[in-house]
């Protein structure tokens, strides 16, 4: 069963990109940054013309792991009852596929507060595009919590392109872990821009390959650590019924919204 997403409506909405940008920017302003980063902002946002493809594969009872984890969580807590299966518990297995043209440009200033406050700044700009995801995602509801976890990647002829052997900076020659459990982000392009021209003087450093790779790896690693099975994120609904707040997960692209 597939979700039918009428992307043309989103696409034709001219103000949408702008409003998402504003929303994200206001969120970025609300978070505390380390003092060497300032002015973190989204300069450009475009949701793209290609919709995500979401297929509901299975509706079933939640996996035992969720119950185990919950019960281990409350182990030793006095008076806590073990979590048991409830007829209302449910688990969705969805196949999420996104190969769209989402584009985000993030800018920030790296600041050096020495010898005087904000003495030297280095503007940095990152453009993120070409995001490719094709994974199975588990969404489970039990014990008033929603669990989200990416279970595994699905093979995809478009995303599993063979790397060129001649590319010496590619991942072919870099030391690799034994077996990557999951990537989630199969492709993603980061373009960097460091520095700023001032009155036509000076140079801007563009496309720092190693830096782009470094950022990409770190970004993937975070996703893998936090969101891939057997890790998961649980959203606790027990306190309020305001509905879900998706900005709680800023590192997630927008396509998993129809949770």
């Amino acid at each position, binding site marked *: 069963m597939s979700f039918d997403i009428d992307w043309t409506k989103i696409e034709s909405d001219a103000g949408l990109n702008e409003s998402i940008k504003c929303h994200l920017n206001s969120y970025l302003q609300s978070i505390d940054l380390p003092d060497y980063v300032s002015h973190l902002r989204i300069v450009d946002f475009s949701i793209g013309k290609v919709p995500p493809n979401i297929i509901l594969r299975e509706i079933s009872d939640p996996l035992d792991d969720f119950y185990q984890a919950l019960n281990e969580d409350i182990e030793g807590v006095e008076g806590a009852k073990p979590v048991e299966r409830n007829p209302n518990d449910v688990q969705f297995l969805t196949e999420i596929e996104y190969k769209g043209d989402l584009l985000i440009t993030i800018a920030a200033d790296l600041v050096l507060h020495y010898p005087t406050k904000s003495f*030297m700044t*280095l503007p940095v700009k990152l453009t993120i595009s070409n995001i490719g995801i094709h994974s199975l995602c588990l969404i489970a509801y039990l014990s008033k919590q929603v669990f989200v976890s990416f279970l595994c*990647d699905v093979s995809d002829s478009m995303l599993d392109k*063979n790397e060129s052997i001649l590319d010496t900076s590619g991942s072919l020659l870099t030391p690799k872990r034994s077996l990557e459990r999951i990537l989630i982000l199969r492709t993603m392009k980061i373009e960097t821009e460091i520095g700023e021209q*001032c009155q036509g003087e000076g140079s801007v450093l563009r496309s720092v390959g190693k830096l782009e790779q470094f950022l990409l790896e770190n970004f993937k690693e975070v996703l893998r650590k936090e969101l891939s099975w057997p890790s998961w994120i*649980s959203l606790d609904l027990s306190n309020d019924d305001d509905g879900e707040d998706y900005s709680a997960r800023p590192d997630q692209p927008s396509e998993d919204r129809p949770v």
Partner: protein
Amino acid sequence: MSFRFNPESFRDNSFNEEIRAKLTKALNSSSGSSTPTMVETASSEKGAVQGAKMAAVSNSGSLGAATDSESTMRSRKLDILKSDIIVSKVNFPTMPKLEILDLDISAQPRSLVKGICKISCMDAMLQIQTEIEGNLLLVYSEYSPEFTTPTLNCKGSFTIPITMVFSGVQLEAITNIFVKNSGIGISFNDVNLDFDFNCSIKILQSTIEKRLKKSMQSLFKDVLPKVIFNMSQSLFTAETGSSRPTEAASGDEEAYSSSTAPKVILEETDMQELSAANMLRLSTLISSRQTLSLQATVLNVPSTIPGCLERQNLHRFNSRIPSLSNYYAAYKDPERHAALMKRTSSTLAIHPPSSLRSENLLPERVLQENAYDLKTIASIQSRIFDRGADDNVRPRRRKLTLKRKKKSKEEVPTEAPDSGISSGTDTFVGSPEPTTPVAEDANQPTTETSSIPANTMLSLKLPTSIRPNYLTRLERTLLPLETGREKATASINPLEEPGFSPYRPELHRLHSSLYSPLSRHGSMLISSKELSEPKQLLDPKGLNLLCLNRHARKWGNEEEPPPYQI
């Protein structure tokens, strides 16, 4: 300009004042010895203060030069300074410029960032004042043994104030900056320095200036890089003061104290390179040759040693590692597979194509044909997680309350879901080598031909033809290959699963079938996952625990949450 400087700090005089105060403090804390001066000075900010730094160092050099010129006693420090050195004026009328020309982030842990920067600084000005003793005989006699000192007629002190002005300091330099775990390395490549020097004592001006310019080269080549490295080291290792050099080379303006030799810092990565399991396997290999047995050469070739794996057989292990690709091998896209096989034959000698590395993908066809089993997938994924390289890493299971505030984000200690594993394990598809018809033997030379890949593919893709009992045996013997070190570690390794030894005969049988690359099916090896990356087949948890546990220091610590906040 690549870096932006805050114009505010240049507009008012606060920045100049700040630098002035820092320089004054630095120049006086040393009481005449040049080294700490430079260390202190170097702690000024790297780009903008470069000019000032340079001036300060050259200044201390100039004093040394003056001392030298007026005394023949190099070995003893003659203090002709009668008062503190006062930096009376510092001025940066124009903003310095710092441009990044290139940036490189290295994958190696030792050197994190390498950058090439251009530093330029115009019209900087520095004025310093002090008082010197004009009566040099007096200075001399104070530092000499009494019996060599003649009776002096004029013993009075004659203090002369001296002002030195460095104006129009223009500095342009290309620098390489390395940021490492242990500190910041910097080298100045193309230094262009010019300044006007003005001394209130005109008779000394040309002498001091000459000596200053002479010492410039060593300043940029040796002194500044050393100073910056040492300074940054103390920052990186968070040891303040104690490591800082306090003794200076005496009198010699160019000598730098040898006590500032960089510290040796043992890095985690040093440990990482020595895998305990590998060391053990190597020693097994070596000891296997240390024998007087006549049959030793037959019995103890690497392939018969338990736990030793020849590289050309590696792919078989990879093909049995519990991964989605292996489990659903029958569903792999045949066309793509064939294409890869073809490629392999041509590129084999160079690098394995990336797709022949073991990857962990659920074949799309499995989904399309609804052939998947959720629990199996989950248990395979959990299992891969468990055998991952990092010890003591638990799954992250964060809990977010949906009111934009974090309720708790503790890590839930979770055991591996054992229940799921066994079922997943026993059904893994092994490479069905022994069932391959012997008939192939005749027309398959050990060098590969184009016809071979197709055969292999067939055999790889037919897991259904394998008898279940065969599979279980294979599966059991997959891990027990480690039993070679079982004896050595059994007593000390609490994590080793028991029950491997009963399988020894089987193990031996497996070896004879699995480990001889020149057997009749040897040619098949090349076709599928030849030359793949070595995998961490044998779980090093037990050994790491005992000797080389690089996480020992972090034991029980929870990792920090990522920078984002809800």
